[in-house]
């Protein structure tokens, strides 16, 4: 069948069973939009800014196991998308971004709305393509979906010049893709797995350190099985939350800069560490030299060999898909019959329980002023711990991670790697579209929410009944915290002046807005909001302005050098 390039693009999206394309039209993609108009299988979500298109596609991908798709025009459409692309890249989220480009003959002529999109995005995509020939459109899009979702996932951009959309060729969607230059490993090396198991079974102070890779490879159940078989403590990175049920006794909470006392101490003093789909990032282990002071054996399972021994030397590297490797480990333990040495493990658990008794997440609640932690705790209660929760970046993000106890994977959506303020609302849009009947909450701050506030309009158009939980402290709270602790209390440009009345703003967009000033009203307001099954409710909580996130490991310090509360200062 002979089709135009634009027809082929839309056919490809249909072949890939794409439900939603998040996008924004413009000159270079007019033919593509024309084809979208003529069909109703692939639905288009018109955002209000291209950054949000990519974030929403990214949010959609995070809470499903599908590839998110965004569509933007050339020039400013593509540059607006860059923050979204980089955000997805840093967290290894599978996306396909289709961007329009000026006609092939105009490329390099400084044409209207021309930028070198492939050049600009090269450092923040898994791969990208400029398609100059209509005969390559189908195979390139097929490759893009394959690359985005396989191996270590990531965003792939396909740049399509306007004239390629109008040229014609025979359409034939390739089923199979083979690329001689790209063959991601899945199964782990059996010898390495055996070595790892031996270390684990001999461990006296073991620790399982789980990361976003567990979520991305849908390995949460396997991780839980393995951990229970072994009886080992589990900690998780910010990106790994939900990979192991937070209510389980073996879970020590998040580790790292704002991790729990028990998780950070346990990590540091472990003698055998099993790292699963995590990458020893600077926000997780602090200073690698300090971390290296304690002797320990490290086993590292990761699909990306370049993540192994990058910041920390590893003793037993296992390159492979986390789910496959965990499967094999479970199989071998179950068939082998050997179990860890129980006496040593008991002693280790006693030590951990002692650390737990510090109750590092305890905070002083108040009757007069709303504590942000209290709002998150109540949100958890009201939603039965079962909502899709997105966050922006700042203190509220850390409180969300600390106090909303995630039981299941793909429920927690935030920008861990790039730390992009503004993702919260678009992530919630993606999540709500992917899970129409489920509660979706966006925990945000008054600064972050303003970075993509225009999407309240998209939410109205697509009737997305998101609940926005704004922890309004009238400060760039996380910036203020660092200034208080490390810059002599000089609050340079971190006060948020001239804030809008968020409740009224929400109303102006056609939503419900509620301002909450006292702790006694917190729970009622949350319950009221979640009763509104068909409405977006913007809850503007006026919270304590001076609250800080603890525990805290200062940047560049060691994991055990935690500030547990203001009294430690």
């Amino acid at each position, binding site marked *: 069948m002979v089709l135009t390039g634009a027809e082929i693009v839309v056919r490809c999206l249909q072949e890939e069973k794409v439900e939603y394309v998040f996008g924004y039209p413009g000159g270079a993609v007019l033919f593509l939009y024309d084809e979208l108009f003529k069909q109703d299988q692939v639905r288009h979500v018109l955002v209000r800014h291209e950054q949000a298109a990519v974030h929403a596609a990214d949010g959609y991908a995070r809470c499903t196991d599908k590839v998110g798709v965004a569509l933007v025009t050339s020039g400013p459409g593509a540059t607006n998308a860059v923050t979204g692309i980089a955000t997805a890249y840093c967290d290894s989220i599978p996306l396909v971004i289709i961007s329009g480009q000026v006609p092939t003959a105009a490329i390099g002529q400084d044409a209207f709305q021309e930028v070198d999109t*492939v*050049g600009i995005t*090269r*450092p923040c995509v*898994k*791969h990208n393509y*400029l398609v100059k020939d209509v005969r390559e459109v189908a195979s390139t899009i097929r490759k893009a979906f394959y*690359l985005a979702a396989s191996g270590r996932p990531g965003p792939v951009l396909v740049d399509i010049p306007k004239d390629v959309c109008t040229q014609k060729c025979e359409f034939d969607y390739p089923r199979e893709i083979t*690329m*001689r*230059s*790209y063959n991601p490993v899945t199964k782990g090396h059996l010898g390495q797995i055996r070595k790892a198991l031996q270390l684990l079974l001999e461990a006296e102070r073991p620790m399982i350190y789980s990361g976003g890779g567990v979520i991305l490879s849908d390995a949460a159940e396997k991780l839980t099985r393995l951990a229970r078989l072994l009886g080992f403590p589990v900690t998780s990175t910010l990106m790994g939350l939900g990979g192991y049920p937070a209510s389980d006794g073996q879970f020590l909470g998040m580790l790292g800069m704002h991790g729990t006392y028990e998780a950070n101490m346990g990590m540091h003093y472990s003698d055998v560490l099993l790292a699963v789909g995590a990458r020893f990032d600077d926000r997780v282990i602090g200073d690698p030299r300090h971390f290296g002071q304690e002797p320990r054996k490290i086993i590292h399972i990761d699909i*990306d*060999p*370049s993540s192994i*021994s*990058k910041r920390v030397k590893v003793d037993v590297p296992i390159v492979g898909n986390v789910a496959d490797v965990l499967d094999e480990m479970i199989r071998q333990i179950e068939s082998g019959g050997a179990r860890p040495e129980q006496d040593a493990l008991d002693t280790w658990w006693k030590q951990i329980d002692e650390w737990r008794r510090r109750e590092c997440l305890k905070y002083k609640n108040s009757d007069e002023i709303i504590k942000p932690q209290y709002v998150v705790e109540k949100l958890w209660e009201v939603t039965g711990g079962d909502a899709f929760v997105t966050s922006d970046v700042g203190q509220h993000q850390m409180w969300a991670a600390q106090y909303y106890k995630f039981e299941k994977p793909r429920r927690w959506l935030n920008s861990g790697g790039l730390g992009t303020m503004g993702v919260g609302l678009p992530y919630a849009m993606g999540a709500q579209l992917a899970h129409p009947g489920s509660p979706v909450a966006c925990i945000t701050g008054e600064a972050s929410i303003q970075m993509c506030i225009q999407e309240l309009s998209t939410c109205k158009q697509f009737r997305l009944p998101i609940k926005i939980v704004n922890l309004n402290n009238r400060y760039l709270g996380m910036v203020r915290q660092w200034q208080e602790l490390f810059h002599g209390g000089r609050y340079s440009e971190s006060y948020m002046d001239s804030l809008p009345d968020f409740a009224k703003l929400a109303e102006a967009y056609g939503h419900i807005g509620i301002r909450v000033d006292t702790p006694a009203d917190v729970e009622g307001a949350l319950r009221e909001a979640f009763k509104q099954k068909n409405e977006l409710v913007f809850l503007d909580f006026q919270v304590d302005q001076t609250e800080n996130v603890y525990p805290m490991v200062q940047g560049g310090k060691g994991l055990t050098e935690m500030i547990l509360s203001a009294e430690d200062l």
Partner: protein
Amino acid sequence: MRHVISLLIENESGALSRVSGLFSARGYNIESLTVAPTEDASLSRMTIVTTGSDDIIEQINKQLNKLVEVVKVVDISESAHIERELLLIKVRATGKDREEMKRMADIFRGRIIDATDTSYVIEMTGNQQKLDSFVAAIDGAAILETARSGVVGVGRGERVLKV
């Protein structure tokens, strides 16, 4: 430590910038980088001379392998190998210096491939040190222009880099 890394990469537009971008983004050194198509026109071979600690070289290898269009990477300097670089040097060749320049070129087994009344162009191949020594050995004031190709190399014996 100095390493010579050879790789095969799909001969696509932009392939070179993916590699050079990787080196600059991650702060790796490039002493020289050469690239040209192979006998299989769909593949290019690149040779990169770089320096770094063992950890950095390991990361460079892994990061190169991670590039979607890279087919194969070998650190040819890890075992016996041959390196060559081409030098084209234009030198002043007048008076008694003219004879001396020819003598030096002969000693280093260079060839004069162009000559005018006042200048020579000398072609010379060898490893980096040999070319460096030649450039150091002749009178610096006589050098008008140099062009060096950067290093290419292959492993000795049976070892081959091929898909």
